[in-house]
């Protein structure tokens, strides 16, 4: 076994930390006050190669694999879980183009997705929920060499910021419904953003509806093939979406621990820093091992993804990592709030933001309960 990152991976982390500290940190407050990702941040992430971290080099990407993406999302999330999540959603949005698109579709979109000309998301969840997509009501009907999509998706991150999305639709009704996933861009008439959700956390990251009204998509934008739409969506969510949210959780735990340690060493009570109080030490210790255990699971799941483990085998590994990391983020940020006492819920101190963001991470890309189901199915050998 080797738990050491390669020098290249160390540099990836360093590049992401440098960007997060110098570019993102000064903008966090602005994001907290807004509903959308700041205009220039995606462009700047494109300039340093983050947007193309999963895109092959022949299409203008940096192609540093899932572990590379994990390191970048984690470091950005340490400063802003909202922007880290925005980046991971972009990766989730473009991954099916890398894996399943036609050559024409790849040529058209991937270079722009690497630079930020195109920003991507994925659209599967509907008002009835996202964990059982077979009940979806969005439909696509073939018309000559194109398809016409009608429907409404909800809880879509980057619903306004993204100008491209994959969208999973029902293309055959009947006893055995069939589903097809398309890659759509906003220059296609009939694709637009809908209502924006007003969320507890992840301020500055848009999330809401996308609406397809007689949206015409060319045949070349079918991903993987007609009737094979669910595997496309599940691959994107399983290989990046859940992993990405687990990374947002890692960044949140790290930030919570750093804030708690700083406060514990500076706040003096009974003549010395509260870091010397055993009650505080136990909380810090718990946060430290929540971070370590979460990292081990997430990095291992990312490594398995890069080893091309098949989706079905990978799903419980990723689910376990996402469950543990997100639960840990909630716990660690809550402990940080406790250590800071009254300051913990004051906005300038950030810990209350970490707690609000952690709650958002738990629900995104499949709730903690759904992760438990996936893990249990594997453990119980259920079909």
């Amino acid at each position, binding site marked *: 076994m080797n738990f050491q990152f390669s*020098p*290249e991976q*160390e*540099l*990836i982390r*360093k*590049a992401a930390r*440098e*960007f997060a*500290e*110098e*570019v993102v940190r000064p903008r966090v407050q602005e994001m907290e006050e807004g509903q959308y990702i700041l205009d220039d941040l995606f462009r700047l992430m494109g*300039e*340093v*190669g*983050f947007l*193309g*971290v999963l895109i092959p*080099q022949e299409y203008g990407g*940096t*192609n*540093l694999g899932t572990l*590379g993406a994990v390191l*970048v999302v984690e470091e950005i999330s340490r400063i802003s879980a909202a922007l880290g999540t925005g980046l991971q959603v972009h990766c989730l949005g473009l991954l099916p183009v890398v894996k399943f698109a036609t050559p024409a579709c790849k040529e058209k979109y991937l270079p722009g997705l690497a630079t930020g000309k195109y920003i991507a998301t994925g659209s599967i969840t509907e008002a009835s929920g996202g964990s059982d997509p077979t009940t979806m009501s969005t439909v696509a009907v073939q018309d000559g060499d194109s398809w016409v999509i009608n429907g409404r998706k909800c809880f879509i991150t980057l619903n306004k910021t993204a100008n491209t999305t994959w969208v999973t639709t029902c293309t055959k009704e009947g006893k055995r419904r069939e589903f097809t996933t398309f890659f759509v861009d906003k220059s296609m008439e009939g694709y637009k953003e809908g209502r924006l959700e007003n969320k507890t956390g992840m301020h500055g990251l848009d999330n809401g509806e996308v609406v397809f009204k007689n949206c015409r998509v060319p045949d070349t934008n079918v991903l993987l093939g007609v009737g094979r739409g669910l595997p496309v969506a599940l691959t994107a969510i399983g290989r990046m979406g859940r992993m990405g949210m687990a990374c947002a959780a890692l960044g949140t735990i790290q930030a919570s621990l750093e804030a708690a340690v700083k406060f514990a060493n500076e706040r003096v009570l009974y003549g010395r820093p509260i870091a010397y109080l055993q009650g505080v030490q136990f909380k810090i210790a718990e946060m430290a091992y929540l971070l370590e255990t979460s990292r081990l699971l997430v990095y291992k799941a990312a490594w398995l993804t890069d080893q091309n483990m098949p989706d079905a085998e990978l799903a419980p590994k990723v689910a376990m990592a996402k469950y543990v990391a997100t639960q840990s983020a909630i716990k660690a940020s809550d402990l940080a709030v406790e250590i800071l006492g009254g300051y913990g819920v004051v906005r300038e101190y950030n810990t209350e933001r970490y707690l609000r963001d952690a709650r958002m991470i738990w629900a995104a890309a499949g709730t903690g309960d759904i992760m438990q189901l996936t893990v249990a199915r594997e453990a119980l050998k259920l079909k």
Partner: protein
Amino acid sequence: MQPLQIAICVKPVPDPKESTQLQINPTTKTLVRKGIPLVINPMDRNALEAGVKLKEANGGKVTVFSMSPPEGELTMLETLALGADEAILLSDLIFAGGDTLATARVLAAGIKAQGNWDLVICGAESFDGGTAQVGAQLAVLLGTPWITRVSHLKRVDDKHLLVTVEDEVEQRELLVQLPVVLTVESVVNQARPLSLWGIVEARNKKITVYNADTLKLDQKGIGLDGSPTQTRDLFAPDASREAEILTGDSPQQIANQLLDKIGWSRKGAAN
């Protein structure tokens, strides 16, 4: 214009953002670096940027030189990701503890061993030592002129650079003939960010390690034993202050008390 062979000297230093964690070993009087991440000395990063910009404008090659322990290899990789073409790590146990002159001797030997060069650029000073001596010592050892604290530089023809240097009094523009050693201030440019593009490009670039044998260095002039300066003591100066309030019947009387205190003679002063 002719392409330039550019040498950049780089020192890995403890991350300035972690400067509050820095401690001094009470016995050796050296910095305790353990647990503090190393970064490229901030002004050296500006030096590298200056070299890479010159290369991007007119072609040539940028080679980075650094005297550092083997863990400096990550810093070398970072310089390649930031645009250098090749990195030479000068690393040997015997180099340890060297002062600025001993360090300059190793750097000069490395640059000479590598072959032809037109221009050497260093950061004006390091974040940790802050002596600002290495650039000047290097120029003497290489037998070239040197210009320190450059705030702007521009290539004007095959053989000349136009550089701006500033001090507290004036700003001067100098036409400098190559070869030359420059040390640059942080205002000379905005160093580019470390990008994933650069990291991928660094895969195809080379890091070479030279030790004392490769460089055929006289061991009397390198490392702790070869250093003419030794740190005897290191301490934080006592910065405590006392306030005293002068009182008197008139402003003149109070002023006179003040003059007495600071040792000024009142002889001849108008009353």
